[in-house]
């Protein structure tokens, strides 16, 4: 095979067995790779009703055909499992260099099943794979684990691992690779911790071959020129990182503030990309084969929050910043460092602290609950301490470790959790930007901006500007972006390449790499197929149309200040059209005709009465 390596590594952690299997070319063609192939394997092999933290759940690390090629920013991989936070399908995407290394070591994907009797790590080198004792690594942070595993294996090994948060099964623990990149959302790190798997280290001298090297080289050159010519992909992201969005979203009144109680934070500029560049930035950093370099290598000198690392991204600056009413960039960056070192999703962590702050200010939790921590909006020290407590599993941190939905529900007010499918909404207020709310509500993994980033047309005006306040045409727009993103994720390319290229160029890259002729329509149909199979998994898991929702605050409480003052989300008006255009019935179930059109007849059959 070209593009794909053609080999699966299966590891049974219960028995310690390791085996190799061929990758089915037909399955690879239909699901492309990464998020697509991972979804197919999870759907076929895991009972969707399983407890996410039970040995019967599986954890799948999977690359795409473009991963490890020299396609621009083609270094992504995906972790697919049933999410610990959500109980829905989880597909957490990460960059860095780990994904390419997996392919150079001889595998497209690794399927981990069962549970080890004691902590272990997986060592893969040039096709050979073995489980090693990791008892001595248990309790170590991400940087310490990475260094220790490299010392024991190969100094060039690429390491994906969990920190103590994953070991404690914090429900929003992430998996870190290359120390600072994360497969962040839905609690994939908790699933890894439940399996007693501390790390996967990979190294290999293999290559990824392309079916048509001339066509691939030509496609790469064209794509590269288009990305670099676009003002966002070419220069904007490198100069300021994603955190530049703080001021943009704030100025349009769509920057969620104090647990989404408002959409405008008056002092947001202090935590925006411009301030980050002036105060803590050391240098930009890119992932494998990246020509964009949105990453931020940073250093905080303030004695109280001193440290070095990477970040914050926009979502992180918002979560620990505006959403907590905090405008101290040093404190925000320190909280980011804790998350990276202990292995926590920064979005859910920040939003959970924000939710706790609202519970505290309403008197629903007290200093007795928090161990004396004054969780008031704007209290930067309390925000950082709450993050540390969660990371280290101490005191009130054990309750924060459940995420905002279970926290708020435990105190009798689940409506104060700003979640969809128990996953926290990111940093774009659906009251100010109508399409993103529909995307949050319908995203199979729970609220996520990177499932259908309609912010590009609704706010940034790329590829074209659409009215952010309108609902007309938004179901079509959201579906288009969701399908494109599913196919892009499956390819192994970075989402940020879409600041410059679209489905045409991605299909051309894939065709040249794999030798499978993907038209633009074929490529988008793969995205539609992946989306619908994710949906079938969720329906089997017990989720239904009621889970396609937004928090009551977003539907009922108008924004109080800023440029979008007075707005609420009109999501309920859009959902029926969304279902209809998706080819789903009024209950949000894919119709037989839709599944047949996508070649999901067999999957429909095992879904029983659902479709």
């Amino acid at each position: 095979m070209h593009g794909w390596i053609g080999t699966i590594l299966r590891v049974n952690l219960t028995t310690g067995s390791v085996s190799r299997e061929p990758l089915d070319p037909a399955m690879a063609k239909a699901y492309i790779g990464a998020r697509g192939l991972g979804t197919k394997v999870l759907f076929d092999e895991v009972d969707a009703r399983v407890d996410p933290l039970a040995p019967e759940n599986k954890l799948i690390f999977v690359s795409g055909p473009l991963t490890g090629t020299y396609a621009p920013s083609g270094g992504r991989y995906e972790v697919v499992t049933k999410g610990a936070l959500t109980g829905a399908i989880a597909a957490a995407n990460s960059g860095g260099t780990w994904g390419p290394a997996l392919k150079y070591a001889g595998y497209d994907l690794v399927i981990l099943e069962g549970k080890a009797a004691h902590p272990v790590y997986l060592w893969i080198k040039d096709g050979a794979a073995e489980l090693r004792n990791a008892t001595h690594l248990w309790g170590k942070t991400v940087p310490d684990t990475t260094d220790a595993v490299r010392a024991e294996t190969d100094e060039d090994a690429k390491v994906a691992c969990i920190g103590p948060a994953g070991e404690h099964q914090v429900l929003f623990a992430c998996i870190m690779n290359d120390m600072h990149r994360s497969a962040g959302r839905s609690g994939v790190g908790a699933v890894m911790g439940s399996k007693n798997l501390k790390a996967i280290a990979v190294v290999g001298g293999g290559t990824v071959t392309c079916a048509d090297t001339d066509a691939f080289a030509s496609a790469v050159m064209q794509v590269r020129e288009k990305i670099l010519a676009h003002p966002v992909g070419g220069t904007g992201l490198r100069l300021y990182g994603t955190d530049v969005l703080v001021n943009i979203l704030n100025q349009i009144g769509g920057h969620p503030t104090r647990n989404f109680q408002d959409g405008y934070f008056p002092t947001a500029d202090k935590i925006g990309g411009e301030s980050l560049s002036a105060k803590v930035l050391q240098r930009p950093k890119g992932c494998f084969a990246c020509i964009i370099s949105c990453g931020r290598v940073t250093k905080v000198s303030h004695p109280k929050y001193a440290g070095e690392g990477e970040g914050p991204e926009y979502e992180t600056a918002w979560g620990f910043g505006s959403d907590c009413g905090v405008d101290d960039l040093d404190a925000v960056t320190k909280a980011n460092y804790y998350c990276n070192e202990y292995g926590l999703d920064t979005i859910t962590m920040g939003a959970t602290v924000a939710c706790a702050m609202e519970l505290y200010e309403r008197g629903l939790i007290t200093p007795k609950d928090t161990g004396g921590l004054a969780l008031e909006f704007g209290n930067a020290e309390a925000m950082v301490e709450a993050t540390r407590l969660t990371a280290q599993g101490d005191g009130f941190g054990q309750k924060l470790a459940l995420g905002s939905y279970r926290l708020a529900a435990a105190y009798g007010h689940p409506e104060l959790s700003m979640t969809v499918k128990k996953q926290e909404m990111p940093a774009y207020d659906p009251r100010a930007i109508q399409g993103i709310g529909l995307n949050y509500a319908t995203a199979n993994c729970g609220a996520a901006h990177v499932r259908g980033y309609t912010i590009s047309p609704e706010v940034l005006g790329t590829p074209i500007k659409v009215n952010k306040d309108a609902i007309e045409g938004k179901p079509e727009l959201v579906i288009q972006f969701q399908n494109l993103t599913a196919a892009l994720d499956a390819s192994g390319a970075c989402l940020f390449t879409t600041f410059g290229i679209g489905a045409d160029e991605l299909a051309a890259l894939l065709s040249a790499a794999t030798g499978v002729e993907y038209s633009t329509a074929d490529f988008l149909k793969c995205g539609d197929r992946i989306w619908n199979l994710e949906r079938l998994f969720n329906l089997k898991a017990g989720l239904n149309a009621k889970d396609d929702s937004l928090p009551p605050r977003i539907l009922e409480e108008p924004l109080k200040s800023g440029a979008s003052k007075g707005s609420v989300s009109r999501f309920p008006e859009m959902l029926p059209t969304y279902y209809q255009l998706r080819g789903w019935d009024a209950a949000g179930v894919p119709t037989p005709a839709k599944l047949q059109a996508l070649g999901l007849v067999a999957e429909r059959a095992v879904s029983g009465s659902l479709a």
Partner: protein
Amino acid sequence: MKIRYFATLRDVTHKTEEDCAPGAVTVGDLLRDLVGRYGHTFEQLVLENGKLRFALVLVNGQDVREQQGLQTPLAPDDTVVMIPPVGGG
């Protein structure tokens, strides 16, 4: 009229915001005035072939691309926000 600058426009203007004489009647008038003051680099960051495309120009928080573009009228007490093409996710 207050003008607020973000990202690289701060480097070009050496300002985060400024008050502007209320002579400009439209966004286009204002941009011509600012290009005259800050030069070709400013123009490159905001306009593409003389048109607004990826840069954000907000008048009282509303994107002028959803209004009348360069013909969007201005009033003396308006706040104009200017952001060159940047993005993220």
